[in-house]
């Protein structure tokens, strides 16, 4: 009986999460079409969607799987650049912007999943904090690799060069006269066509929620959580630890790649240095503040914490100082038993921990 009741609660939470996201999308769309939304907020809608997907997918690794990943921005970077390459190189082949956006997001997710697979195969067999160390290194390696990458496209197809010595330039690709440079090493991707839209961002968020929530509530998800709670016990009942860890980790990486592709196609310039350690930590902050394993918490934390620094512009130079203070206060407040009781979170104490 008790089990049944708790199951019902999680289902309710899931549906409330879907409902909340759809409601937020409808409200924001209505406000936007009615002209009630200022430009500042309108401009932030797509990055907010990207960071929500990032936070939810990282929550899968950190909260559900219980492994610390410090290189989530690395997967975002892989997704962003492969997405930009896909979208720009197919410019003539696929005239429709929407189709190209979908292809780019799929390409971003696929390449990020591949990167996740390569990182995961050796590391997820180990016990302890190795994943944190390796993903940290992975994020830095990806940044350096993309700094060496030269990509261009002309009528003959894609041209790529790997600029290890640092002496090649975009002219060394040997492109035809009609060729355009897509990625220019350290200068990153410039002149990218802006394909991302709030609608696409919303669909990606919903897709992410469907994937992550269904995964978590499925047999696979229960196995993943069993590994998190007690690896030895999980192994003893025959759970293939590495396999389930890989499933969760690669899903997380693929979703980060999809978010990256959307992000990359929202700005006309994109440099690899954007996806550094700080970005990984920023997303981790969203996850921790929203609550480990708490999906709707990640969504709200990502949205609020993304808007916050912009809303604090009136403090001018002290903006980020105030941001830090707000973060500390939120941390203190969400761990305060009195406030928890007040908001009715007391009963959730067990799950939040």
């Amino acid at each position, binding site marked *: 009986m008790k089990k049944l009741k708790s199951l019902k*609660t999680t289902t*309710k*939470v899931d549906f*409330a999460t879907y409902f*909340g996201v759809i409601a937020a999308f409808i409200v924001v769309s209505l406000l936007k079409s009615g002209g009630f939304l*200022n*430009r*500042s*907020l*309108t*401009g*932030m809608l797509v*990055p907010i969607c990207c960071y929500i997907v990032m936070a939810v997918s990282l929550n899968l690794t950190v909260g559900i799987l219980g492994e610390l990943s410090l290189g989530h921005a690395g997967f975002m970077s892989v997704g962003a650049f492969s997405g930009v390459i896909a979208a720009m190189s197919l410019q003539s082949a696929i005239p429709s912007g929407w189709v190209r956006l979908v292809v780019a997001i799929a390409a971003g997710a696929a390449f990020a999943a591949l990167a996740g697979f390569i990182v995961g195969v050796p590391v997820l067999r180990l016990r302890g904090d190795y994943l944190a160390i390796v993903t940290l290194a992975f994020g*830095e390696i990806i*940044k*350096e690799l993309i*700094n060496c990458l030269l990509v261009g496209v002309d009528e003959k197809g894609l041209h790529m060069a790997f600029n290890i010595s*640092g*002496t090649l*330039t975009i002219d060394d690709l040997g492109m035809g006269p009609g060729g355009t440079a897509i990625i*220019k*090493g*350290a*200068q*990153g991707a*410039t*002149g990218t066509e*802006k394909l991302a839209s709030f609608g696409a961002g919303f669909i990606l968020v919903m897709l992410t929620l469907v994937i992550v929530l269904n995964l978590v509530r499925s047999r696979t998800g229960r196995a993943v959580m069993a590994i998190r709670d007690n690896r030895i016990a999980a192994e003893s009942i025959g759970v293939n630890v590495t396999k389930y860890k890989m499933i969760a980790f690669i899903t997380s990486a693929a979703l980060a790649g999809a978010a990256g592709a959307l992000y990359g196609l929202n*700005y*006309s*310039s*994109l*440099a*690899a*240095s*954007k996806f*550094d350690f700080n970005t990984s930590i920023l997303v981790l902050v969203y996850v921790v503040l929203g609550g480990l394993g708490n999906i*709707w918490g990640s969504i*709200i934390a990502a*949205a*609020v914490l993304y*808007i*916050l620094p*912009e*809303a*604090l*512009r*009136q403090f*001018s*130079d002290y*903006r*980020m100082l105030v941001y830090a203070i707000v973060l500390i206060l939120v941390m203190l407040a969400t761990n305060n038993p009195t406030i928890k009781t007040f*908001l*009715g*979170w007391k009963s*959730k104490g067990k799950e939040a921990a």
Partner: protein
Amino acid sequence: MMKKFFGILLALAMVLSLAACGGSGGDKTANDNPPASTDAPANNNAPADAPSGSASGTFKLGGVGPLTGDAAIYGNAAMNGAKIAVDEINALGSGVTFEFQAEDDVADGETSVNAYNTLMDWGMQVLVGPVTTGAAIAVSAEIYNDRVFALTPSASSTDVISGKDNMFQVCFTDPNQGVGSADYISQNMSGAKVGIIYRNDDAYSQGIRDTFVAEAGKVGLEIVSEGTFTKDTQSDFSVQLTDAKSKGADLIFLPTYYQPNAVILNQAKGMGYAPTFFGVDGMDGILTMENFDTSLAEGVMLLTPFSADAADERTKSFVAKYNELHGETPNQFAADGYDAVYIIYAALQAAGCTGDMSAEEICEAIVAVMPTISVDGLTGQGMTWAETGEVSKAPMAVVIKDGVYVTP
């Protein structure tokens, strides 16, 4: 359960409404220019019989640049310079007044677009900025779609202006800096063995290095050593310097910002290596860097369009004002920001814009007149623009002597 959910919804609604309040509050408080819109009627009345082809009214100028973070010295200098020009123009009583608001972008493309959107909410009509290249490329796509005229004081990459008819530059483009440096070195220091140390994860540094090397090949300049670094490795240059020294480089070309340059100068002195150091506009600012021993920069050469100890009257008065307000000698970025406002002023006058025109109308009007005007500024006499947005003015090499720039 539902109670909790509503709690969250309410909290979110509160945060959003707070954010909205924050936005409008910022508009009022951050506007630190006394001649606000209340002055506008008076100014509109004064030049009622002004000849056609001259502007009138109050224009809202927005500035975007890094006011905090690693590149803050550039953003602050450019914005301070722009503010001085705004105050001067407001005091002229020519019928044109400016309101100026600067927003921080931490030299990041994403934040820069957010800052630009904040300014658009404020009602900006013309943009001065963004100050740094990466941010400027991101914002240039937005201003092109929105049809807002933008004049960047110092974003020097050609990617900033390429394909956008309403984005103009005050500074040289990177190719010009690279080509100018190579030409200057080959003409004035013939036979120099050149070593290059540059940051290969930075659009600015890589861009100048590429054009420098290409031009060096044309004019027969010998490059003996090339060392690279990244944002994460800019605290130690012993490898690059040792390589340059062992290959006999007697001139080190530094197409980099002043922070790594300060470390390079310090380490070169520490290892007893004294080549001629040659920088570009990113070197500018090294003398005002906190805790930097300016004696290290003695004899450093750099290509800059602005020298704070130039003898002309306008530079003198600008330097004095800047010193009085901010307690330091202005660098090239301050002069770029100052010039940017005067260029916009000249363009508005030439196009005969009025303060009640929308950003799109002003944009179309200015874009049409930009190739026809010529402006005398601190960073060059008779500056003219191509339709592409590129400026044409003469670069000037200076050498640091006793802590100030002098012409060699």
